[in-house]
């Protein structure tokens, strides 16, 4: 449009408005949860006012969402019937506490496995919890993901139909992981889904939660996820996220983490799929002595655009945050690492470290890396480093002189690079699962026989 990229207006506003009105009439959760209606409406208004972000917005400098803004996406009908047990057999794991399955943003009880009764533990559909368990949900839902400033969060808050609700009572240490599987079936017409997850870890509780976004079919679609995590005092939470949808999917996800005193949250994020992906990870270290690890890996190929954005807010003293991100870029793909660290006044003794390492496999890729430190306290330790490099030719030759062919040797070196991310995960079921997923996603995986 006359070469102008500035456009905060929402070109497809009528279709969003229509969809919103339709939801209010038809969706059970939108009709019945009257207590949340005001939030929905206010979020929708906020979305209309904010519009989609543009590259003139500092937080979106490297990622244009024009393709999302220009398209018309429809809300899916309720149609999980097509998905069978066979379709998801590859996503079943032994040794889980529970597995909730969602199809295009909608909970499917038929495919889900709930945990054994545990006093006070709740693992369910969020829509169901909103209808039946308002007292538990209301104090947390939408209190941390700020829809007044972030358009995608506003959109999600207005539109979400369902997602997971996990509530860990005080002092419960859940050993087995909870697996939230979000399936995108694809469709002939562009479709959108706004999964919303709420995870509340009570004081001194512990759990491991995996969110996995997978495509079962092709077709342009838009997944706009918001997950709110509230980690109570001294809670320990391991959160894993995989984005491996098809390369015709626009995927925006926002993970808001609220950490109370001495809470530990380890967030691990692996992006391999999607066409245009933006992952926001936004921990707020609200209480003293909190610790947050943001560990990530992205593997891009073809024309993928994978943007890893994080904003860490140190609001209290004696907190630590570590961000480690590794990127592997091939083809004509583009990667972004944008790590914002805010150290608020009074957040003394903050210890923050940020490392971004990237491996470029072709000369037609582009990697933008941007550390951004905003420090308003005087007694803090903040370091950051970023590197961009190629495969080490000396290492490649060394491996080949021992008999490995070039593809296998490359595969091994890539896996070693990716392993830096794996090694920061706790040993166990989910790490092994992640290792397999990462291996398959590596550019050399197909040629390499060793892996």
């Amino acid at each position, binding site marked *: 449009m006359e070469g102008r990229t500035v456009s905060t207006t929402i070109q497809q506003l009528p279709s969003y408005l229509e969809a919103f009105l339709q939801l209010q009439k038809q969706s059970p959760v939108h009709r019945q949860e009257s207590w949340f209606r005001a939030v929905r409406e206010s979020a929708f208004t906020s979305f209309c006012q904010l519009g989609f972000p543009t590259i003139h917005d500092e937080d979106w400098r490297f990622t244009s969402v024009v393709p999302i803004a220009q398209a018309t996406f429809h809300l899916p009908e309720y149609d999980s019937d097509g998905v069978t047990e066979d379709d998801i057999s590859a996503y079943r794991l032994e040794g889980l506490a529970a597995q909730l399955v969602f199809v295009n943003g909608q909970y499917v009880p038929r495919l889900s496995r709930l945990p054994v009764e545990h006093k006070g533990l709740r693992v369910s559909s969020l829509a169901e919890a909103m209808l039946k368990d308002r007292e538990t949900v209301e104090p947390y839902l939408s209190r941390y993901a700020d829809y007044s400033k972030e358009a995608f969060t506003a959109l999600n808050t207005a539109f979400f139909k369902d997602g997971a609700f996990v509530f860990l009572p005080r002092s419960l240490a859940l050993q087995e992981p909870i697996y939230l599987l979000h399936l995108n079936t694809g469709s002939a017409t562009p479709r959108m889904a706004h999964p919303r997850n709420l995870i509340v870890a009570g004081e001194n509780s512990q759990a491991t939660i995996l969110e996995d976004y997978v495509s079962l079919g092709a077709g342009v679609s838009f997944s706009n996820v918001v997950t709110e995590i509230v980690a109570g005092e001294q809670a320990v939470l391991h959160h894993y996220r995989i984005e491996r949808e098809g390369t015709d999917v626009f995927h925006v996800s926002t993970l808001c983490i609220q950490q109370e005193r001495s809470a530990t949250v380890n967030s691990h994020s692996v992006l391999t799929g999607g066409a245009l992906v933006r992952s926001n990870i936004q921990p707020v270290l609200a209480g003293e002595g909190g610790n947050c690890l943001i560990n990530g890996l992205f593997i891009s190929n073809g024309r993928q655009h994978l943007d890893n954005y994080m904003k860490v807010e140190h609001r209290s003293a004696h907190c630590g945050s570590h961000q480690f991100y590794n990127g592997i870029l091939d083809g004509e793909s583009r990667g972004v690492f944008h790590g914002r660290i805010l150290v608020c006044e009074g957040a003394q003794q903050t210890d923050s470290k940020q490392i971004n390492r990237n491996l470029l496999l072709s000369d037609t890729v582009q990697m933008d890396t941007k550390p951004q430190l905003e420090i308003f306290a005087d007694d803090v330790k903040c370091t950051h480093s970023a590197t961009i490099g190629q495969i*080490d030719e*000396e*290492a490649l*030759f*060394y*491996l*080949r*002189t*021992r*008999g*490995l*062919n*070039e593809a*296998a*040797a490359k595969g*091994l*070196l890539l*896996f*070693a*690079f990716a*392993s*830096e991310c794996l*090694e920061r995960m706790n040993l166990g079921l989910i790490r092994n699962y992640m290792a397999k997923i990462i291996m398959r996603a590596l550019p050399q995986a197909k040629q390499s*026989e*060793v892996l």
Partner: protein
Amino acid sequence: MAMLEIRNLHVKIENREILKGLNLKVNAGEVHSIMGPNGSGKSTLAQVLARRESYLVTEGEVLLDGKDLLAMKPEDAACEGVFMAFQYPIEIAGISNAYFLRAALNAVRKYHGRKEMDAMDFLPFYKGKMKLLEVDESFMTRSVNEGFSGGEKKRNEILQMALLEPKLAILDETDSGLDIDALRIVANGVNAMRSPDRATIVITHYQRLLDYIVPDFVHVLVDGRIVKSGGKELALTLEEQGYVGVETEARALAVAV
């Protein structure tokens, strides 16, 4: 037929001629030692035999059991039985020695149409070799050479050789950085592999290693050519007289040519 036959080998690195017409014949069962001053081209020769493709061969040929070695990729040369112990082994973070070696061993076995080794069979085999080289079992899980001392790296090279059982082993200054105990252990490892159908080329600067690995032939490499060959006593002469004498001879030779 010789196992290895190098004829009139000329090699350029970044447009500078480093090997200038090198000839060498190694038969199965033999141990050859190549000695020579720093920068004479010893490592270049080793790397070319291991098929570093960035080193440009401008003339000559190399035959391995009659096959054109120079046409091989590094992995093919390895599978055909060439093993080069690096003068400066490479550190590779994130890959354990055990994983790497099993992958390498299986690549070689596969090349020869042999069954691959699973972890169950591999471990005892690996541990046996570790014992032979008096290497701590923690080697298995440590990343390839990462954070290894100089001596540990050299031992790891010989450990790899012991596992891969090459027919032609080229040891590039494996003795540098080793104390006398380690030297003895490494030499034992090499000697354990000596057999009528294997050959070894020992590149070294000092005669000491040759007390333990006794060579059948010693060659002196000066300025890209072998200027003198002899039996094991040549190493002793060199140790006493240094390379000055042979260097002068070499220059005279170069003028004569």
